[in-house]
């Protein structure tokens, strides 16, 4: 390893006890908490100061969103199973679980676009009213995070998986970090779903 290479990628750092990658991804997730926290805070402010607020279940498709919630939770399970497969040194199982994670994420995005298309067809846009503004903003930004996860996971399923042959420990670390991001995206939806659709 050259002098300029980042250290403590596969071995834990002696001071923190974790790899630099894991520390880094958790710091990134902390910033993401502030990102979505700001948006949720805006939702609270808008809803509390509005003269009236519609019931989410009257305007939005609860069965579709419940399906999406279950889809995302399942994708979280397949993601952690992908990491566990690498820990058990089973590369083909890893590929199957990672492929399942990506497919489930795409199902989520397709269902989301069906919801959006339905709204647009009936001329409900972000500019229609405050409820739709915050609904489209919150779910749209979350959807972009799902898409980002799909891109990263696809990289790790195809070209990125070559690292498994040269440095399996580092590759396993990468999948763990990708998994942490993916679970966070699931976490945000776990709060978004009841807040927007059920309350």
């Amino acid at each position, binding site marked *: 390893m050259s002098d300029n290479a980042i250290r403590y990628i596969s071995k834990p750092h002696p001071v923190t006890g974790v790899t630099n990658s894991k520390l880094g991804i958790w710091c990134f997730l902390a910033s993401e908490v502030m990102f979505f926290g700001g948006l949720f805070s805006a939702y609270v402010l808008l809803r*509390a100061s509005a003269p009236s607020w519609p019931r989410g279940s009257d305007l939005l498709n609860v069965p579709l969103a419940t399906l999406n919630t279950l889809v995302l939770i399942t994708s979280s399970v397949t993601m952690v*199973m992908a990491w566990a497969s690498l820990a*058990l040194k089973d590369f083909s199982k890893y590929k199957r679980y990672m492929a399942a994670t990506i497919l489930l994420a795409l199902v989520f995005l397709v269902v989301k676009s069906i919801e959006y298309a339905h709204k647009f067809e009936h001329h409900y846009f972000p500019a229609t009213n405050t409820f739709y503004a915050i609904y489209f903003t919150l779910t749209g930004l979350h959807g972009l995070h799902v898409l980002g996860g799909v891109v990263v996971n696809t990289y790790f399923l195809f070209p990125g998986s070559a690292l498994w042959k040269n440095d399996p420990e580092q590759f396993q670390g990468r999948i763990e970090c990708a998994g942490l991001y993916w*679970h966070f995206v699931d976490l945000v939806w776990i709060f978004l779903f009841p807040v927007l659709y*059920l309350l």
Partner: protein
Amino acid sequence: MTESPEEIKKHVKIYITVFAALAFLTVVTVGVSYLKLPVVPAIVTALLIATLKAGLVAGFFMHLISEKQVIFGILVVTVFFFIVLMLLPALSRSDLYVS
């Protein structure tokens, strides 16, 4: 990660159990919404169930339950600032909540 195959297999059993719990709690969340509770109990119940689900994901899928101190340190700071963020609209105005 230097865990033995047996330990990983134990983890896998936990993942499946947590998945079942999460699916059940999702159904509970939707079921409770059909009770059409008044606003404040509805919000409290929904957020409590969501926090429980989030705790399961964070604790078991993100391995927080067995993670090192430094990660908790980052999260404690984050949670503090998140609470500040959520309370800011309420604390900055006295006439915020329109009844």
